[in-house]
């Protein structure tokens, strides 16, 4: 058994200090140069926006899924709530970027907090089940509350408001400028979450994943921390949703369906969210590459992505990041965190 034992996030101990690691550098550099290399490799600007938005969603989701080990299968709902909140704010209150984003985050925080209050005393499969049920309720309401959400069609014609920073005002109507905005938000979210994951709160979240009972007996209010993690990750999903509504210029119930919630789980897992902070990023990129590249060759790309996922769960459920970790260990390049600590001690 010990040989087959899986790697987890906690296997790669926090190094502490600054988040300016090599991986973060590569990631930020890729973000900053995307408008130039995306067309060069035959892709298009809008894809960059889409991927960046899903990366925000996936990183926030992995705080819950990978770090604290709570398996939400209804997370698309909070993305959807954010998207609708953004759209309704533009259409009913005022055309404002900041207002819309605040509304998106606030609405999904409230929705997440409410659901978290119902489910935070649970774990395992029952937790997953309750998240599905709540996710379906949000999805159902989005379809049926026609007068507010526009039913199956959703909200159409949501404007892309200008970015106002004091006296400066920038139009985000074209995809390149919207990309820059989304990329900056993503960069900030990634830096923030990286710090959080390796700070005490992140370590305690991981402790709860490993042993909820022990965590409560050494003095942690497990219910409250689970509540915080769910609510925070719903809030980040809401932010992604607000940006999504802006990018799509619409908000529709599809993103809240079980399918979409399942897809985010698949992306995070395939990438290796259970093993590495960077796992979700690999997974999202892999998914969109599969969609656009395999999708360009055959219409059944989802079939191939699904098969790849099934095989991945069978042979290496730690995902892509797990594969990379194993290769690095084999060739003796694994992060030497433990060695440095021994010296310090």
């Amino acid at each position, binding site marked *: 058994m010990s040989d087959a034992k899986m790697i987890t996030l906690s296997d790669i101990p926090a190094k502490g200090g600054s988040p300016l690691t090599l991986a973060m550098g590569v990631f930020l550099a890729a973000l900053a140069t995307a408008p130039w290399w995306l067309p060069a490799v035959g892709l298009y600007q809008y894809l960059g926006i889409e991927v960046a938005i899903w990366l925000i969603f996936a990183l926030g989701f992995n705080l819950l899924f990978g770090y604290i080990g709570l398996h939400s299968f209804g997370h698309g709902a909070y993305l959807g709530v954010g998207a609708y909140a953004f759209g309704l704010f533009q259409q009913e209150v005022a055309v404002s970027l900041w207002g819309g984003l605040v509304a998106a985050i606030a609405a999904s925080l409230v929705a997440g907090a409410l659901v978290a209050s119902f489910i935070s005393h649970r774990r395992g499969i029952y937790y997953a089940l309750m998240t599905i049920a709540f996710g379906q309720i949000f999805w159902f309401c989005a379809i049926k509350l026609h007068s507010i959400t526009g039913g199956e069609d959703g909200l159409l014609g949501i404007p892309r408001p200008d970015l106002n920073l004091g006296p400066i005002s920038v139009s985000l109507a074209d995809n390149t400028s919207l990309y820059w905005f989304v990329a900056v938000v993503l960069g900030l979210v990634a830096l923030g979450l990286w710090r959080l994951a390796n*700070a005490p*709160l992140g370590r305690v979240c991981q402790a709860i994943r490993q042993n909820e009972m022990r965590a409560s007996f*050494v003095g942690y209010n497990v219910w409250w921390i689970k509540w915080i993690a769910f609510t925070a990750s719903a809030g980040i999903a809401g932010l992604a949703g607000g940006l999504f509504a802006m990018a799509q210029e619409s908000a529709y119930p599809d993103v809240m369906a079980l399918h979409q919630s399942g897809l985010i789980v698949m992306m995070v897992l395939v990438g290796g969210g259970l093993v590495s902070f960077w796992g979700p990023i690999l997974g999202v990129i892999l998914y969109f590459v599969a969609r656009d590249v395999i999708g360009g060759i055959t219409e059944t790309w989802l079939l191939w992505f699904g098969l790849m996922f099934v095989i991945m769960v069978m042979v290496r459920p730690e995902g892509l990041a797990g594969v990379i970790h194993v290769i690095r260990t084999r060739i003796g390049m694994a992060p030497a965190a433990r060695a440095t600590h021994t010296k310090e001690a």
Partner: protein
Amino acid sequence: MALFEAKNLRKRFGARVVLENISLSVEEGSVHGIMGPNGAGKTTCFHVLTGHHAPDGGTITFDGQDITGKKPYQIARMGISRSFQIMNLFDDTVVIENVILALPEFRDSGLNPVKDVFGNKALVDKALSVLDQVGLSHRAWEKAEALPYGERRALEIAVALAPEPRIVFLDEPTSGLGTEATQALAKLIQELRSRYTIVLIEHDMRFLFQLADRISVIHWGQVVTENTPAKLQENKWVARSALGEVA
């Protein structure tokens, strides 16, 4: 006044009464043993005393405060700590993090979202000194899961000691240990008794009699008798039923 006191505790699961009437009184600085046959309700008793289960009746007081029905984390924060019979560790992470997580300094800043964990020298040193007490400091940076059984038992105790509790509940610490390891553990508890108040559930009677100041014998969910080890050895019933098994 006793540091920790339980009065007339009752606990049932469905129709099954597990604790009928348990009263305990633990003096500060003493080692209090709990013994009894399998299924007598010893572990349930621990679970009730440390807040894992709320009792159906009776009261628990600690240092003059009523703690009946409080949650485990609240009880832990008051300075009551426990180990588990079935190992309960943070298995995916390194030994030292198991201890750091239990340090009050860490816990009280525990939700700080930006602070460093392993970069904090004071925390790491403190955790190492706790590990030193149980002889595990050389294993600090190894994965908890990878330790051999005996050392995992020691880590179980280290995690219980890390918060510098005023009272420690140890649930069958010798369970699964060989004679040598049991003797080492007895030595460790002898060292600890000067600093902590200890409540000990034990199967191994020799171990318990050599360490405890007072022992409560639990049977059928009740405290049958409570006395010093010397007095208990004179008690024919105890001698026959419990010590007889060991000898």
